[in-house]
C-alpha cells in the first residue's frame, strides 16, 4: 500500500525535466559585468543543473531498489488503490477501537477506515491537501480564530473522531490559546478577520 510511488524511470524523467528547465533558466541569467567577478551569478546554477541532469540519467537507468521495486507497477491502476483501501479498513478497525478510549466498547468491525472516509488513499490525500489549501485561502478573509476553529473541527470530524464535544472544545481551545499567545505574548499579529479582537 504505497500511493504515489513511481518507478525509477518516471522519477528520472521528472528530475531530468526539472534539470533541463533549471539549466535553461540558468543560461538566461545575465552576466554581471559592472566589476570583474570570478564567479558569475550563473556559474553555480549551471554546475548544479548539469550535475542534476547527470543524476537524473543515472536514476533513469537504475534498476529498481529492493523496497520500491515491487510497488513500481502499482502506480497505474485503480484497483491497486482500492484493495489497499479495504486492507486498511480491516487492519485499522481494532486500532480505532483502542483509540476511541478505554470506556467505549469495541465496535463491531467499522465500515470505514480509522482515518478519513474514501477507499482510495490517493483521493484521500488529494482531498486532505485541498482542505489545507482551503484553510490557507480563508485565513486572511475570515481571520485566524474563525478559520482555524472551523478547520480543526471539520478535519477532525471528517477523519473519524466521534466525540464531537471534545472535538469542539479542542478546536475552540487551541485556536484561542494560539491566537492570544501569539498576539499578546509574542506580539505577532495574526489576521483578525471580521472579529473585533
Amino acid at each position, binding site marked *: *500500500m*504505497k500511493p*504515489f*510511488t*513511481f518507478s525509477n524511470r518516471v*522519477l528520472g524523467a521528472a*528530475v531530468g525535466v526539472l534539470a533541463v528547465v*533549471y539549466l535553461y*533558466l540558468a543560461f538566461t*541569467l*545575465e552576466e*554581471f559585468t559592472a566589476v570583474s*567577478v*570570478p*564567479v558569475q*551569478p550563473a556559474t*553555480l*546554477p549551471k554546475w*548544479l543543473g548539469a*550535475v*542534476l541532469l547527470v*543524476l537524473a540519467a*543515472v*536514476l533513469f537507468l537504475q534498476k529498481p531498489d529492493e*523496497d*520500491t521495486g515491487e510497488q513500481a507497477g502499482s502506480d497505474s491502476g485503480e484497483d491497486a488503490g482500492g484493495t489497499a483501501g479495504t486492507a*486498511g479498513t480491516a*487492519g*485499522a478497525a*481494532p*486500532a*480505532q477501537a*483502542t*483509540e476511541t478510549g478505554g470506556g467505549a466498547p469495541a465496535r463491531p468491525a467499522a465500515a470505514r477506515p*480509522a*482515518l*478519513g472516509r474514501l477507499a482510495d*488513499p490517493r483521493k*484521500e*490525500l488529494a482531498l*486532505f*491537501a485541498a482542505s*489545507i*489549501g482551503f*484553510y*490557507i485561502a480563508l*485565513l*486572511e478573509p475570515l481571520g485566524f480564530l474563525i478559520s*482555524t476553529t472551523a*478547520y*480543526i473541527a471539520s478535519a477532525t470530524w471528517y*477523519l473519524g*473522531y466521534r466525540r464531537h464535544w471534545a*472535538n469542539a472544545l*479542542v478546536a475552540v481551545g*487551541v*485556536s484561542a490559546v494560539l491566537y492570544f499567545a*501569539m498576539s499578546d505574548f*509574542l506580539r505577532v499579529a*495574526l489576521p483578525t478577520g471580521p472579529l473585533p479582537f
Partner: protein
Amino acid sequence: METLQQMGAGFGVAFTPENLLFVFIGVLAGTVIGILPGLGPMSAIALMIPIAFGMDPTTAIIMLAGVYYGAIFGGSTSSILLNAPGVAGTVATSFDGYPMARKGAAGKALAIAAIASFTGGTVGVVLLMLIAPVLSSFAVSFGPADYFALMVLGLTAVVTLGGRNITKGLIAAVVGVMVSLVGIDSQTATLRFTFGMPELYEGVKFLIVALGLFALAEVFSMLARRGAGGADGSMSSLRLNRRELGRIAGPTGRGSILGFFTGVLPGAGATVASFLSYSMEKRIAKDGDTFGSGNPKGVAAPEAGNNAAAVGSFVPMLTLGVPGSGTTAILLGALLVLGVTPGPMMLSERPEMFWGLVASMYVGNIVLLVLNLPLIPLFAKVLKTPRAVLIPLVVVFCVVGVYGLSFSVFDLWLLLGFGVVGYLMRQNGFPAAPMILGLILGSMMERSMRQALQISYGDWTTFVTSPYSAALLGLTVVVLVWPLVKRLRTGAKGPAADGGSSPDGAEKAEEDTATRP
C-alpha cells in the same frame, strides 16, 4: 583551567531563572513531540522555532537544544512501548526495548533508556567542552576554499550515510542547494529563479521547507497509512536493581564515547551512532545471542550512543559553523534567523552563548532525567492521542509557524507545496535531510566558493592546492566511491540481511521509519 572558568560563567548563564525555565520547556516539549509517532527531532525543532523568535538568541538556542535531546528521548519511549520509533535515531532501541516491554518490563526498559541517555548526554557534553575549543582554534586557520570543501564533504557524507539510494540522496541535496539560490544574489544583486514574484526576492525561508518536508509530509503519510499502529501504553515498575545497573554500565559507557565521536563526524548523526554502538555491544557481549529478544544491554547501548551523538553533532555546527546533520542544519538555520552566526569566532565573540549552551546541556540532561522518569507514565498517555485529532493540530502549528514569521499567505502556499513534495519524496525513497542541509549550506557554499576564487584570482586549482581543502575533497571522493566499491564486492550476494550491523542497517531503518506502512 580557563575552560573551567568559562564553564563557571556558562553555568551563570544557564542558571538564570529565565534560561532554566526555557530548558525545562524545551525538554518537555521535545519529549512530548518526540513521543508522537513520526515526529522526530527535526519536526520538533521546526515546530518550536516560531516560539523562539521573539527571544534572546542565547535563551532561544538553549531551548532548542533542549527540544533536540528531549525529542530523541521521547522517540525512545515510543520505540519501547509501541515498537514504533518516532525518530530514526531510536530504531535500534526498539530491537531490544520492545521485546522487553512485551515481556512486561516496559518500565525497566524506559528507566534504562533514561539512565543511558543521561549518561550519553553527560559524557557527550564533557567531551564537547574539551574538544570544541581546540577544534575552534584550529578552524580559525581555515580559508574559504577549505570551507567549501568541508561543506561539500558534509553534504555527500549525509547522503551516503543517510539513505539507501545514493543517487536519490544526491538529487535531494542538489535540489536543496538550488532552492537556496532563489532570490537576490548577495554579491551581484542579480535576481535568480524568482519568476518575477517579489515574494521570492528574499529567497525561500528555510523554516517553510523544514516544516513542509518534515512535519507536513509526516502528516500526509500518517493519513495514507490510516493511522495504523494502535497505542497500548501500558506501564510497569521503573525500578532497577543494582545488578541490572551493573550490567548496563559497560555498554552505556562505550556507547557514549563511540556515539560522541560518531556524532562529530559530518553526516553521521544519532542514527548511525545508535546502530554502531548496538552492533558493537552485540559483538562483544558474552550474551550477544540474546540481543533482539529483550536484552537490557541492547537498550542501553543505542540510547547512550544516540544521545552522545546528538551532543557531538553540535561540535561541527558550533565550531565550524557547518552543520553535520539535518537536525543541526535546522538549528543553524534558526540561529541565522536570530542573527547569530556560529563558527570559529563564536567562541571568542559570544562566549556567554557558547558556554551557556554547554552548561544548559548539563542542566537539560538533569531535567531530562529528573522530570521524565516520574512523568513517563503520563507521557505514555500522549501516545493515545487519536490521530484524527493530532493531524489537524500539526497542520495548524505549521501554518501558525510560517505565518507568524512572514505574515504572507504566499509562504503558506509554499509550505503546502513543500509538504506535497516532501510526501512524494518519502514515498519514492528520496531522503529529506540532504535537501534541508543543501538548503542551509547552499548559499554558504557559494559565498566560500566566491571568496576562494576571488583570493586566487579565478584560479580553480585553489581547491586542490590548499592542503585542507585537498584532503577534504579527497575524503569526499572516498565517501562517494566507497559504497559503490562495497556494492560491487557484495553485489552477487545481494543486500546484507544482518539486522543493522553496518551503516547499511541504519539506512534501512531510516528508510523504514520514513515509509513505515
